[in-house]
């Protein structure tokens, strides 16, 4: 069974593994959160509670899938499909290992950014179609947050792109053979990390769905598998951001030879997923205006300065 880039079996394997991993993250997150809160978490169903995911799936599939009569049906149904499609498409350009990947695009970084910006529609259309004040508030917050943090995300990436001299994610990984970009681009890494959390609107930046303020934000009116798609979409976004950080700053599949490349990739990406869950366990949610001020008055100048200095150093070395 030969894996190669773009073969049907590779695409099917990536799709399957990514979705299964995203579903398993529901369990991983609950276990890790409880580990850090001195609890045990779900440990009853199956080995260590692993079948909890299956139980949750059965529950969410058999729930009543209700569309509110006041909602805009077309948009209401379209919105959860967008987020799944867009995030799964983004996985297409990620190089998991030397022989595992879907396409080898020369514009991989831009493709990911384009898909991230389209992902904002899912949240906004969901909020707008629900015809519910909490959903609308959540969608408004999501729109402002996502288009703001896309800017910093893009600019923080450009340092890596300038160092590697390519938008191709596979070439970015290969150019890190001598050293990972996390060392020269540490500021870019931090900004990308923060913007990545804000972009996948996870805690502590889950302002669009802040339960304590606006019940569930944009997916207040959703139920059944439509809600499940938002739910799995959030975890898919988590996997995507972790994979991107691994590829861009931590040398992708590169590692000592005693483990196969895909295992190195999984270890690094898994570490970041665990770190994101730790962030959720530890850091409280900022206020909405604090988030925007922090973005525009701190992250933007710092990321621009980072890009400027990186460019200057590259020019002076050449």
């Amino acid at each position: 069974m030969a894996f190669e880039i773009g073969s049907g079996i590779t695409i099917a394997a990536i799709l399957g593994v990514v979705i299964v991993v995203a579903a398993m993250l529901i369990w991983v997150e609950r276990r890790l959160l409880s580990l850090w809160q001195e609890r045990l978490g779900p440990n009853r169903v199956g080995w260590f509670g692993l079948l909890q995911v299956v139980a949750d799936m059965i529950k969410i599939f058999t729930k009543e899938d209700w569309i509110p009569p006041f909602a805009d049906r077309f948009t209401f149904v379209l919105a959860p499909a967008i987020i799944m499609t867009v995030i799964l498409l983004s996985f297409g350009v990620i190089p998991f290992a030397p022989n595992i990947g879907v396409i080898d695009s020369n514009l991989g970084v831009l493709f990911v950014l384009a898909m991230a910006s389209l992902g904002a529609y899912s949240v906004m259309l969901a909020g707008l179609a629900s015809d519910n004040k909490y959903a609308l508030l959540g969608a408004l917050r999501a729109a402002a947050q996502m288009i703001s943090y896309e800017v910093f995300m893009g600019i923080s990436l450009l340092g890596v792109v300038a160092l590697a001299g390519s938008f191709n994610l596979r070439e970015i990984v290969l150019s890190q053979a001598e050293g990972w970009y996390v060392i020269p681009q540490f500021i870019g890494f931090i900004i990308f990390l923060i913007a990545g959390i804000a972009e996948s609107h996870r805690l502590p930046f889950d302002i669009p769905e802040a339960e304590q303020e606006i019940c569930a934000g944009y997916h207040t009116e959703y139920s059944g598998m439509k809600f499940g798609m938002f739910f799995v979409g959030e975890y898919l976004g988590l996997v995507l951001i972790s994979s991107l950080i691994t590829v861009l700053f931590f040398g992708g599949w590169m590692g000592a030879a005693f483990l196969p490349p895909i295992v190195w990739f999984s270890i690094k990406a898994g570490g970041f997923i665990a770190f994101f869950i730790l962030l959720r366990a530890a850091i409280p949610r900022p206020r909405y205006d604090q988030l925007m001020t922090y973005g525009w008055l701190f992250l933007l100048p710092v990321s621009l300065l980072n890009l400027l200095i990186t460019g200057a150093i590259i020019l002076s070395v050449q």
Partner: protein
Amino acid sequence: MIILFYIAAAIAVISTVCVILQSNIVHALIYLITSLLSVAVIFYVLGAPFAAMLEAIVYAGAIMVLFLFVIMMLNLGQHTRDQEKSWLTSKVWIAPSIMSGILLVQLVNVLSELDHDVELTRVGVLEVSALLFGPYVLAVELASILLLAGLVSAYHLAKK
């Protein structure tokens, strides 16, 4: 590749017509986004992948989000939908569409006589950047000054 072009072009035309005919403004916007994305595909097919990505990021990703943002603020409901429907009567659109139909026939006629063996040249990021910061550097700088003015005024307004 050329089939991809025709599919994308058909989608672009149909969705653009739908943008005009829709009375629900959110649906119209979704069609507009579809139209922009299909234009991005056309750019890609014609050998300009960088332009295609920028079309997706800037137009479909950022500007349309702002449109949607404004629509959320406006609190549009059933009454605007009815208003749109009442404006779209046949006596309003029939004369312009007949005239533009004639123009379309002429355009197709002219285009069919052209020699349509277009030489595909792939324009990558490097070529675009070299042009932007070579011959057109003045235009880029002027545009950036315009953006800076916008930034400063937005900051001033937000501070009030």
